[in-house]
């Protein structure tokens, strides 16, 4: 006689529904997506190149050698630093008017730009998430907070960032905060809409009935539903932040010129653009490539994570 259904081992028939395995499967699906692979791959490559910059044919990004000024890209040459040492150096991207190697500056600049991009994304996500959670859950403060966000969105982001940097000075902290603040309203809106939807779910109602403290409800029931769209939005914020930082530095109102950010390199190369366009064009290509990679990654994540998100609702 076959075992009755009550004694058969049916655990293998049901998919594993633990939280950990759902996350693992989401990750696996994400990694199968073409856009995620390309965007994430290029981004990873850029990050690795930025980390290993000292070993990739670079010299001190701030070392000047006026004698090697305005070298064209792809030319071998010599570099004499201020200590008097002379050595051979292959100018992959040429040099600027002061003889600084553009390739070195670009690669070291990648460190700053990518770090700022990630820092801005984390700051905007955290603050936006807090605001969105509170506004969505507590009806009393909802309309006031959303009005505040509307007002903030009415001020063009770059103008806001420029003024903040002009007022508070051009340090890394100020620039990160100045770029992050205009991004907060969009994140807050996103989280708030998730909260508004989830708030009406039966399990939330049940949790309230069980006297669960509010912070636990927000953290354990509502927040996990917002994670996917937050991650997607975070990549877009990162891309925008890298762009805005470059624009700020290019206009002269970003990070101090001692730091070799892409915007600064291009800003200093402006004067020679007519004769030596490589000063501006080559770091610009790097900038565009990085932002493109992050955007493609974001698109891929959105395609894989968001349908999952909407399927969970449906």
């Amino acid at each position, binding site marked *: 006689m076959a075992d009755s259904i009550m004694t058969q081992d049916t655990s293998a028939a049901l998919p594993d529904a633990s939280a950990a395995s759902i996350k693992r499967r989401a990750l696996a699906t994400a990694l199968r997506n073409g856009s995620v692979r390309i965007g994430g791959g290029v981004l990873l490559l850029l990050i690795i190149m930025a980390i290993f910059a000292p070993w990739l044919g670079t010299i001190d990004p701030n070392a000047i050698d006026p004698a090697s000024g305005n070298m064209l890209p792809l030319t071998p040459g010599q570099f004499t630093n201020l200590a008097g040492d002379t050595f051979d150096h292959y100018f992959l991207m040429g040099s600027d008017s002061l003889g600084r190697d553009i390739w070195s500056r670009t690669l070291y600049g990648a460190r700053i730009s990518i770090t700022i991009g990630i820092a801005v994304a984390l700051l905007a996500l955290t603050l936006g998430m807090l605001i969105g959670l509170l506004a969505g859950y507590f009806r009393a403060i909802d309309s006031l907070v959303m009005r505040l966000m509307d*007002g903030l969105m009415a001020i063009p982001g770059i103008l806001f960032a420029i003024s903040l940097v002009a*007022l508070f000075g051009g340090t890394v902290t100020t620039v990160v905060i100045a770029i992050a603040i205009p991004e907060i309203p969009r994140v807050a809106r996103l989280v708030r809409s998730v909260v508004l939807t989830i708030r009406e779910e039966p399990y939330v109602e049940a949790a309230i009935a069980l006297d669960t403290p509010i912070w636990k409800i927000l953290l354990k029931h509502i927040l996990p539903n917002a994670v996917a769209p937050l991650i997607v939005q975070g990549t877009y914020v990162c891309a925008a932040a890298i762009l805005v930082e470059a*624009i700020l530095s290019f206009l002269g*109102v970003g990070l101090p010129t001692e730091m070799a950010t892409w915007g600064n390199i291009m800003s200093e190369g402006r004067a020679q*653009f007519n004769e030596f366009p490589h000063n*501006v064009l080559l770091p*610009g290509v790097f900038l565009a490539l990085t932002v493109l990679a992050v*955007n493609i990654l974001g698109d891929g994540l959105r395609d894989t994570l968001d349908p999952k998100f909407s399927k969970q609702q449906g």
Partner: protein
Amino acid sequence: MLAFFLRRILATVPVLVIVALIVFFMLRLAPGDPAAAIVGNSGTADDIALVRASLGLNDALPIQFVRWVGELVQGNLGESFFMKIPVTELISQRIEPTISLAALTLVVAVAVAVPLGVLAAWRHGGWLDRALMGFSVLGFSIPAFVLGYVLIWLFSLHWQLLPVQGYARFENGFIPWIRHLILPSIALSIIYVALIARVTRAAVAEAMTEDYIRTARSKGISEARVLIRHGLANAAVPIVTVIGIGVALLIGGVVVTETVFAIPGLGQLTVEAVLSRDFPLIQGIILFFSVIYVFINLLVDLSYLVLDPRIRY
């Protein structure tokens, strides 16, 4: 009808108040004395005291705010500290190049993006669709100033077809005016085209799945007419919405593009104001642009009444 207009216009007031509050507190919250910041390093204690008195910084904050808003409502945006000219006068001097650039960019962007989006939605999933989506991501990623320099390098330096930089006033002739504006408009419009094309494609694609499209086709209406009169028309609301929202991108982009192409407009004025820390001017310009943005979005909202008769406020 009038009630809609009034209600919608009144709804902009809280937003404008918040903008005024943010701009007001930005200067007051900066480290140090705002008067000292305005006077700069070369000022003496007397200068600082003078500025404090002239800006009314010695009064209580609420009084300052009310007085400042009172001046704003009367159209007084303050006076530039360095140029000693009212901000409104400075803005009116520099506004023509910016409006020319913005208007041309808008026209180019919509004229290019909407047809592209409609075509992509028509051939949903085809090569045009995918090419458009790829181009759209590219458009978001290449910064306007990089593209601007690439265009200058190609068209002005290499092929010498167009002027490198500068601006020609419209009254001095249409051809010079447009020759100076072509490259900046293209550079500035790319991100706008990417945004609008994306939304157009999504909105029209969704509209094409509706039942009324099937009805229209079964009535024997030509595909082109179905696409435009029934598909695009029903997608108009999200498209116009994104055009309005994109104005914020346009304003930010104008600042950079004018710097690259040396166009003497409001964007350059902003950069000059910031570099010289001319706070009254910075405040005035931010307020001006924010009001423009709110106003344009008001127009967008009001246009819904025309575009979608089902919408009632």
